[in-house]
Structure formats: C-alpha cells, structure tokens
C-alpha cells in the first residue's frame, strides 16, 4: 500500500508527535459553504479534498497523477474507456460502502455541477459498474486530461445517500471528517478513526480563516496558529525567516496573476496595443509591489509546474519607448481604459503600479475597485464590463481558457483552439505537451494577456509542525501527514 497514503513529503521524525494534538492552520480565503459542486472558489475543495473527500486518483506533491481510491487503472487503446479497480474495504464516514456504484454516481453527477469547471470532464459519457470493485469510465471522445481532472475536485467521491445537504454536511472517505464549520471563521476537522489508510497524525485540525494577511501574521507571531498556508504577508517573510521560532518555505503554486485586456474593446483588439501595454509594464516592479519580490515573474500563461511550461526570455521586456512606438504604429492616442480591480491587496497594489506605468506611455487607466468575488464576477467576468482587469487565476492548467472565445477577455485565435483540441485528444503525454506548447506560444505572440507572476505558496510554521505540504497543486491541502510535536 505504499504510495497510497497521501504523505506529501518524506515525513521527518515523528517520534515526539502527539497523536492528540490539534493543528491550527491559518488560511486566507474562507469557504462560503461546504459544497464545491455548486459553489465556486477554491477555498472549499482546498480544505476538503484529500482530507474529507477523496477521488480515484490524486496528485502527488510533484503534480504527478497517482492512484488513491483506485488501486490502478488501464486505458483502452482508443482512449475511450478507463477501467478502474477499486480499493476494497473503504467506507464513507456515514458508514456507506465505497464501491463502483458510488463511482458511477459521483462521476455521472459531475454534469450537474454548477461550479468548478465541470466542462473539464465534458468528454465523460457514463460509468459502467462492472463489479463492486471495478468501474469502467466511458468517454465520448478521447481526452488525455481526464486522469488529471479526476485527481482534482471533479473526481471526488460522494456517498449516493449523502448529497442532499452538501453545503452543510460533508461525507467522504478521507482521513478527516468535518466537526463543525463556523462560516468564514473556523473549519474544524477531526481524525477519521475508521479511515481505510494511514490514520491522520493529529487528532484535530482547526482551519482559521483570516481575511487580512496582517491579522494572520499577527496570529502566527502571537501563537494563535501553528502554521500559515498560502501566507500573503509577503513583506513579513524576512522577519519570519529571521525568527528561529518559525520555518518558512516557498513552494510552487498553480496560480497565474494576469492583467487581462478585453478584446471586445476595438483598441485592445489590436495586437500592437496589447503588445504596447505588455512592454509598458514593469513586471519586476509589479512583483516587488505586490509580493515584496518573492514571486516568479511570468512570461506566458503557463506556470513552471505545468508540463508544457517552456522557460524563455521575456518576449515583452519593460520598454516604455517600444510601447509608445507600438501605440503610434497602431495610431492610438489618448487611450482611456477602465481598469476594474478586485478589492484584494495584491490587485490593489498591482493596479496602482500598472496605472502609473501606463500613464508613462500615455494611456489613462481609470481604476474601479470591485468587491471580489461578488461584484467582480458579475460585472467583469460575466458581463465583460471592463477594459483592463487583474486577477489571480488559481485553478490548475487554466491556460485552456484562452481557447474559449467567450471567456471574459474575448480572446479568440482559431489556431489556439485547434491546438487545445488536439492536445486534449492526444493519447500520449508527448503529443499532449507539444500541442499545448504550441498553443501557449501562440497566445504569447498574440499578447492575449500580460502575465505578471506566479506567486509562491508560502508556508510559515512553527518548529513543532512537521510535514506541511509545501506545494499548492490547486487541489486539496492534504493534512493527514502533518504532525505536531511537543
């Protein structure tokens, strides 16, 4: 059963680990409720996936797809059927058995999901129950990304008799169960002692939500929490590092912070204008302002952990003169743009730097702060009422959005669409990567966005905490392998 227990990193000495310990973990964005099948936002599955819910597959800390509730699977030659063998003796926390029927129920239910991109599993046609421990997943067309998506929230297994009140009751097969959720404040997980695999190393996990990064940092310093995950108080990292009480790690994340340009605006439909804007922005300054310099500058829409990421030079280096030239070539003068800004600190900081940068090349950006998510999602994302906006796309492999012409930035390049389709249909990894890389290169050439940076997943922990997952894979924070000593 090695590899089955979701231990993220080589577990260091757990000799002094207390089995009755409570891990208090500070997080930023809080779940609105417990139902990620109908409520958007990463916070819910971040807390629940891998802890309460489990899928047939999971991602390991390096981002590789490995089995979890399945012991393994085979893909048919045509790429249309996946045969999963299931782990035996697994039970949901409500006592119901986990079997092929549950797989069929869970996966076929994805079509009805209202959130978290059920379209990524659009190729899934139906599931056949071969035997209680064997499930056959049938696709309508070949899709090489299916295992990846099955390793994420879309692949979570639900007990067929426990989906009536997902928003308040979470029933899964995972190493924890939800003890209580005080909305927006505190989510308490307790160890599932009936767990099929290696039991969690702490008795309880308190997920404390801090809307404000400074408050989270204060709690860390004053001993209110044991660890911070996705710590955003970037400017305090240095002082945390200098403090022997704490360990600070910066892992990878799937997030892309991007300045998007609405190509429905005729001026922005001109690739020269988009390139001019790309040249006008000093990414280094942006990274300094928004993250105190700790994030990785991006040159394209892929993050380093993506298989199709290509390390390259900045195609649009900071060059106001070039920007002005491009604008002149495009015949654009006195450009006035509405810049909608989510009311998040990183976006506020970026917007002001960008505004300042754009002003230097003669573009006026009018900032318009929008509550995130409510107003931003409504006005910018849905109604496309913006010229510029900046947002952190946290979903993994979100680059495929550039293949969707009706996405909020209205970017459309048929060649890119074709590349994505080909990549999806690819039956082997290499051809998937080739097609994806082609698409990414085309998107970069079109300057479809100004990709600013990939924020690190900063984890601050006290010395007593061991085994914190450091990389954010855009799925759940697996906490079963975390221990607290002393």
């Amino acid at each position, binding site marked *: 059963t090695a590899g089955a227990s979701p231990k993220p990193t080589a577990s260091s000495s757990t000799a002094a680990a207390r089995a009755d310990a409570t891990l208090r973990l500070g997080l930023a964005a*809080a779940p*609105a*409720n417990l*139902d990620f099948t*109908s*409520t*958007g*936002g990463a916070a819910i599955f971040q807390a629940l996936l891998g802890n309460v819910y489990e899928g047939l597959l999971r991602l390991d800390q390096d981002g590789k797809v490995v089995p979890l509730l399945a012991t393994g699977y085979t893909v048919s030659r045509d790429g249309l059927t996946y045969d999963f063998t299931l782990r035996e003796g697994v039970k949901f926390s409500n006592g119901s058995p986990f079997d092929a029927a549950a797989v069929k129920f869970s996966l076929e239910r994805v079509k009805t*999901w*209202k*959130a*978290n*991109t*059920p*379209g990524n599993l659009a190729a899934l046609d139906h599931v056949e129950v071969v035997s209680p421990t064997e499930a056959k997943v049938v696709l309508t067309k070949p899709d090489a990304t299916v295992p990846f998506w099955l390793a994420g929230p879309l692949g979570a297994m639900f007990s067929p008799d426990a989906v009536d*009140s997902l*928003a*308040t009751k979470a029933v899964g097969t995972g190493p924890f169960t939800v003890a209580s959720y*005080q*909305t*927006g*404040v*505190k989510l308490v997980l307790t160890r599932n002692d009936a767990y099929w695999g290696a039991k969690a190393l702490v008795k309880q996990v308190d997920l*404390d939500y*801090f*809307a*404000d990064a400074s*408050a989270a940092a*204060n*709690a860390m*310093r*004053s*001993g*209110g929490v044991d660890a911070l995950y996705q710590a955003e108080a970037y400017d305090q990292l240095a002082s945390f590092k200098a403090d022997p009480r704490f360990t600070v790690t910066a892992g990878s994340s799937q997030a892309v912070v991007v300045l998007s340009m609405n190509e429905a605006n005729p001026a922005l439909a001109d690739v020269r204008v988009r390139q001019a804007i790309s040249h006008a922005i000093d990414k280094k300054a942006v990274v300094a302002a928004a993250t105190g310099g700790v994030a990785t500058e991006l040159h394209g829409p892929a993050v380093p952990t993506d298989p199709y990421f290509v390390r390259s030079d900045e195609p649009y280096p900071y060059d106001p003169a070039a920007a002005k030239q491009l604008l002149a070539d495009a015949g654009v003068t006195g450009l006035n743009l509405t810049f909608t800004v989510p*009311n998040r600190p990183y976006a506020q900081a970026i917007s002001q730097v960008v505004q300042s940068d754009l002003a230097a090349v003669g573009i006026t950006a009018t900032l318009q702060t929008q*509550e*995130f*998510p*409510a*107003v931003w*999602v*409504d*006005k910018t*994302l*849905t109604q496309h009422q913006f010229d510029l906006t900046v947002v952190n796309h946290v979903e993994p492999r979100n680059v495929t959005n550039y293949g969707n012409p009706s996405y909020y930035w209205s970017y459309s390049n048929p060649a890119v669409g074709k590349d994505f389709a080909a990549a999806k249909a690819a039956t082997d990894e290499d051809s998937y990567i080739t097609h994806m890389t082609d698409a990414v290169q085309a998107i970069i050439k079109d300057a479809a966005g100004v990709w600013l940076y990939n924020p690190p997943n900063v984890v601050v922990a006290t010395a007593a905490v061991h085994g914190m997952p450091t990389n954010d894979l855009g799925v759940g924070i697996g906490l079963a392998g975390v221990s607290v000593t002393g």
Partner: protein
Amino acid sequence: MLLTVLRRLGVFALTALVASVVVFVLLAVLPGDPARAQLGLDATPDQVAALRHQLGLDRSLPAQYVHWLGQLATGSLGISYSTRAPVGPEVLNAMQVSLLLVLAGMVVAALIALPTGLLAAVRQGRADGAALSAATQVGISVPSFLAGLLLVTVFAVRLHWLPSGGWVAPVDGVGGFLRHLVLPALALGLVRGAILSRYLRSALLDVQREDFMRTARAKGMTRWQALRRHGLRNALVPVVTVTGVELAGLLVGAVVIETVFVIPGLGSLLLRSVANRDLVEVQAVVMVVVLLVLALNLLVDLVYVLVDPRLRRAR
C-alpha cells in the same frame, strides 16, 4: 408604571416595523446578482435563473417584503444565499459575540470614565484636572482601530501576553474567553471611555452649578461629600441618556474592532455578507443591528424612568 412600559413597547414595535421597511427597501436595490455570486464563474444563465426563482428574487418587491417579514417573525431570518442554511442561528451567534464585546467595552469605558470624569470635574481649573481633560480629549481623537492595532502589536505580537485575535465563546472556556476579550474590549472601551468621561465631567460641572448642590453644602456637607451624595447621582441622569447612543456607537465601533481582532461578531458577518452580496444575510444583520439600537434606546428610556423620579407618573 406597567402602562408606561407597554406604551413604550408599542412605540418600539412601531419604530422597528418602519425600520424594517427601510432596511428592506435600502437593500432591495443592491447591485450584483446574488445568484450569480453564489454560483461562481461557471454557471449557465439557466442555472442562474433557476436559482433566482428558487430564492424568490423574481417576485415583486412587496411580496418579497411580506415573505421576509414572515421569516423575521419566525426567527429564521431567511435562507442564506451563500451558506444555504437559515441565517438566524448564525446571526444570533454573531449577535451574542458582539453583545459580549460591547458589554465588555462598556465596562472598560465605565471603569475609565468614572474616576477620570470625576477627577477632571473636581480638579477643574487646576493643572491635574486640565491634564486629565486634555488626555480624554486626545483619547477621543484616536480611531479605535488604530488603538486596536497598537494594542495587538504591543501585547500580542511583542509581549505574547494575550492572543492577537480570535474568539473563544464563554462556554468553551472562561479563561480563553477572557484572554481573547481583553484587547478588543480595551480598544473599544478606551475611546468610548474617553467620550463618557467627558460627558461625566461636563454633567458634573453642570450639576455643581445646581442650586441643590448649594443646599447640600448649606446643610453641612463638604464640597466632596455633596458631590458624592447628590452630584454623582444627578450627573448620571444626563449620562444615562447619552449611554443609549453611546452603546449604539459601541455596537458600530465593534464592527471595525472585530475586523482588527478577527472576531466573528455582527461586524465581521456584515462585512462578509456584503462582500458575498448575500442579500438575505446583509438584511438580517442590518435589521438585527437596528433592532439592537432601538432596544438599547428602549432600555435606556426605561432605566431613565427608574433613575429619575420626575418621569414617573405624578400622583
């Protein structure tokens, strides 16, 4: 006396009803589609429309109001858009937290105001009295959230004496409750205490000019005795009237303090529900705050009657 209370209760009910209409109308015009906000990025228009129907957002405003009023009456306060659960218990929880915080703030304020107000009044015109008066004046001018930040920095982050924030309900441990209460109560109470102190001082100065204080001294009391036996009690009468408004101020001040200290009270709830565009929750919170303010005013009016015999019915 009973009739008096009943009459006052009637006025309270009427005012509350009018206030409920105001709350409803005020928030019925909230932009941002709650259904959309709830469903996130991926919902189709059909799904959104279905949810709107399910939430009753496609009904006429009066119909929505009547429906809402019914929910208010039953205490469920409606089903939250974002948590899908009745708002009632959550709001009630938050209200308990806020009330405890306000109460603690009031206690701190009173502990500060009584001695300083008294001393500033007694020592009026002298150096120490003037210094005290100046100190309270400065105290009023400091935003409570700034006071909170400073308190956190010093006592939580630097000295580790107290937690920097968070909340422990009294049932989960009185010690933890108190430890978590101290700093926010201080932040809240310091400023209010300064305000109250100034009221007390000026009420005492007013009272000292009253004829009956001269009478008291003519009976053979020293200045201090007269102040203690007659002055303080009379000065408290006007202070009681402002206490109602002050409590309302505390309640609203708590909103900001709750943010600083990450306390799950009405303020945090309000900010969160506003951010989520959770109309039902916003309405519920605002209504509860307004009801609390009205109830506090009611309470103060009744206390006022107890304190001041002139307001009881003459025979």
